[in-house]
Structures are given as structure tokens and as C-alpha cells.
């Protein structure tokens, strides 16, 4: 059985790390940005998922 949420989380985790290293300079800023980016990825997926819920 495939966990769609696990795949989504893995994707968000890896991309967030890369974005943080590319877009921020200090370690502290990178960690904060990586967490922010990860939460945005997963949160957006939840919001879009709920928006699509009424549709067949």
C-alpha cells in the first residue's frame, strides 16, 4: 500500500532543504526557512485536498 502522505512529506522535506540552502545564508535562517517551506508545502496540500473534497 502506498502512503500518499508519506510521499508528499518526503518530497516537501527534500525540496525544502534545497530551497533553504539556496535562498538563505546563515544556518539559523536556513533552518527557519526549511521549516517554513515544509509547513507551506504540506499545509497547501491539505487545503487543496479539502477544497477538492466535494468533487467526485
Amino acid at each position, binding site marked *: 500500500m*502506498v502512503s500518499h502522505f508519506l*510521499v508528499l512529506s*518526503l*518530497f516537501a522535506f*527534500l*525540496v525544502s*532543504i*534545497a530551497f533553504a*540552502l*539556496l535562498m538563505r*545564508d546563515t544556518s539559523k535562517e536556513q533552518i527557519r526557512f526549511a521549516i517554513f517551506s515544509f509547513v507551506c508545502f504540506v499545509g497547501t496540500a491539505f487545503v487543496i485536498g479539502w477544497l477538492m473534497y466535494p468533487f467526485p
Partner: protein
Amino acid sequence: MPTKQRARSARPDENVAAAIPACVSGWLVPGLGHFMLGKRGRALIFFGVVMSMFLLGLSMEGALVALDRSDLLQLLGGLAELGVGLPYFVVDLLGRGDGNVTAVTYEYGYTFLIVAGLLNMLIVLDVFDIAVGRKD
């Protein structure tokens, strides 16, 4: 003289010429460009991230698509995947990139492969910026 000051004091075309080997290396092996510029920690993390995405994509039965100029979407997908560099050619030569379009994870795998290539392209641009002195 610190690297950044030296890079800024050199002529722009010299900086660009010096950046090319690092950029090509960074494209061929994810993270190698940063490694050559002395950013070893970042290099290791970039290598881990890009290779993880690439291998996860293959394990989810995503496909390495051919560069077919008759189909624009397939061409763009192939170009994006090509961004990952040597691993693309190695897997293609080994015949492991055919994917399985009927697998439930096929689209996920394909997405991971494309994003691995695109991320490596961004990483190469970062190498360029560091090499010409625009960034530390």
C-alpha cells in the same frame, strides 16, 4: 585577499570563464561544483538531496523519458530530468529508467525525477553565483 574580494576585483569575463568548470562539474555530479568552491557541507547536502530524489523517483517506477522533439511535453520532461547529470546517463545505459506506467506510483516517480533535475539546475546557478562573487 578573501575569495569574494578577489572575485569582484577580477574582470567579469575572467570570472565567468573560471566559473564554467565548477558549473559543468556541478551539473555532472550534484554538489561537486560547491565542493570545488570549498563549500563542502553544502555540497554534501545537495548531493544527498538530489540523489535521494532521483533514486526515490526510480524506486517509484518513474521513467527517464527520451528527448523526443515531436512531443513538446516529453521534450521538456526529458530536459528537466537531464539536469541531474551523470546519474541520468548511467541509469539510462543500464536500462533501469524505463519505468512502469501502470504502477500506482508512476506519476510520483516521474515528478521526483523531474524535480531532481530541476533542483540540480538551480544548484548549478548557485555555483555560478558563488564562483563570480555575487554570493558567499
